[in-house]
């Protein structure tokens, strides 16, 4: 099994502060990898570096064998990586349907002239986009809420919508930033099954940042632990569970 994503020597400095320092890890193709660590360990920063939101101070990001370090964020999606955000960044005032429909844009190729004059290419491709949107919503269980405004959805469904939107771009690697934040045990359970399901159904690889240890241990096949911007440990869930340094990092000053 090859690695779909490889991160080597990843470092990010803000002024004098190193948010992330010499981090190496890989995400296996088709696998679900967990990225954990106390608050402030640099997990979201890593996501931002992978997706080009931050420029690296040094280090490389390799995807499917190609160097994608410092690619513009909008091109990263094209390359095959999409993500969700810790503090949910949905298109709040748009409907559920429109949130996903918008993200489907890359599946169409019609240009402005086609739009202006409602040419056949426009009609054909728009229809396909709408069908794709409906299909995704149905798979993710959101089709009965498709006309609801995103802002008005319950929290758990908002997160699910964000995941749906990320799937609309046909990614091969999905980055999930704390998808279970604020969820109760039932919802977390559902989410866990959902992530496993979409990984199988869409043949994705997943990298997930999480604090819910239960979710991480049961869902992830491989776990990377960060602390103070550096990699602390890297391995199978059982190994990580018993790793003294990891336990210390969490009990001695982190949260949870």
């Amino acid at each position: 099994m090859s690695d779909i994503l490889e991160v080597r020597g990843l470092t990010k400095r803000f002024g004098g502060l190193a948010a992330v320092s010499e981090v190496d890890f890989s995400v296996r193709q088709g696998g679900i990898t967990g990225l954990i660590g106390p608050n402030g360990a640099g997990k979201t920063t890593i996501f931002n570096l992978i997706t080009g939101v931050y420029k690296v101070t040094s280090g490389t990001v390799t995807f499917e064998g190609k160097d994608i370090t410092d690619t513009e964020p909008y091109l990263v999606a094209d390359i095959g990586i999409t993500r969700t955000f810790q503090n949910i960044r949905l298109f709040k005032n748009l409907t559920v349907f429109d949130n996903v429909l918008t993200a489907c844009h890359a599946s169409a190729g019609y240009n402005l002239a086609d739009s202006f004059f409602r040419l056949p290419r426009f009609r054909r491709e728009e229809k396909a986009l709408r069908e794709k949107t409906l299909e995704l919503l149905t798979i993710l269980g959101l089709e009965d809420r498709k006309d609801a405004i995103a802002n008005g959805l319950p929290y758990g469904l908002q997160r699910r919508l964000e995941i749906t939107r990320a799937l609309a771009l046909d990614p091969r690697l999905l980055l999930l930033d704390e998808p279970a934040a604020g969820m109760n045990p039932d919802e977390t359970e559902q989410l866990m099954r959902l992530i496993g399901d979409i990984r199988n159904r869409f043949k994705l690889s997943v990298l997930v940042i999480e604090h819910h240890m239960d979710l991480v241990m049961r869902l992830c096949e491989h776990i990377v632990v960060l602390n103070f911007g550096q990699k602390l440990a890297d391995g199978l869930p059982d190994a990580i569970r018993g790793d003294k340094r990891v336990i210390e990092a969490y009990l001695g000053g982190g949260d949870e």
Partner: protein
Amino acid sequence: MAQFLQQMVNGLSIGSVYALMAVGYSLVYSVMNFSNFAHGGVIMFGAYFGFYAITMLKLPFPAAFALAFIGTAVLAVIIERIAYKPLRERKAPFLYFIISAMGASIFLENIIIATIGPTFRTYPDVFGRTSIALGPVAIGRLDLIMFAVSAVCLTGLVLFVEKTKMGRAIQASAYNMKAAALMGVNTDRVVMIVFALGGMLAGIAGVFFGMKYTVYPQIGNITTKSFVAAVFGGLGSLPGAVLGSVLLGIIETLVAGYLSSQFRDLIAFVILIGVLIFRPTGIMGKTTEDKA
């Protein structure tokens, strides 16, 4: 050579007025991350406050001056409470703030036109029209006082921001509002003080502008130049705002003196284009990255 020095002095003089306007704007920008486009209206009110304090209330200059800048400080805070605070609380998008600022600016300009009227008013000669000769150059008394007051204000501002507790709270908030709040800073009060300071500077700028030129409701339009000066010096940097303003004033005056006075007002725009193309962060600006 003497002419050149004279032009430099003149440039410095207008530059210091721009500096007062620009610093007030930059201060608010650096803390709130937002361009207060109603700043011009406040400056204009400062000019009117000072004018009426002298002509109608017959106050001596220092008292009139104080009345003017206290009045504008209060006005700025009122505008903040009415036009921006509700939006801040709703976490409204950036666009809404700009539109609200535009609304405030329209209101300010037109309330003057509707009540007092659009005619130009002139400040009475408070300092006399005599100039003082410093070697080959002549500096008007008004200009000297303007330099002095500007220098005092700006130094005072720097001291306040660097040395006092509130000043440090402002710096912390400028860096990161949320973090500052988490550390116990009363961010609401910080915002109020920042706007009050900005308003104060606007009032001072307004009075001097009115004294140097005339008083009319569209004074606010001059602020465009101070925005450009702030960009030139580096948006968000207070020393940058001063530097940009002084340079703008000098360049403008030199161009008007040596090339053509017609192009004087266009210089600001040319500088703006140059800055945006070659160095958007300005002379002293810093780049920041958005946090996800």
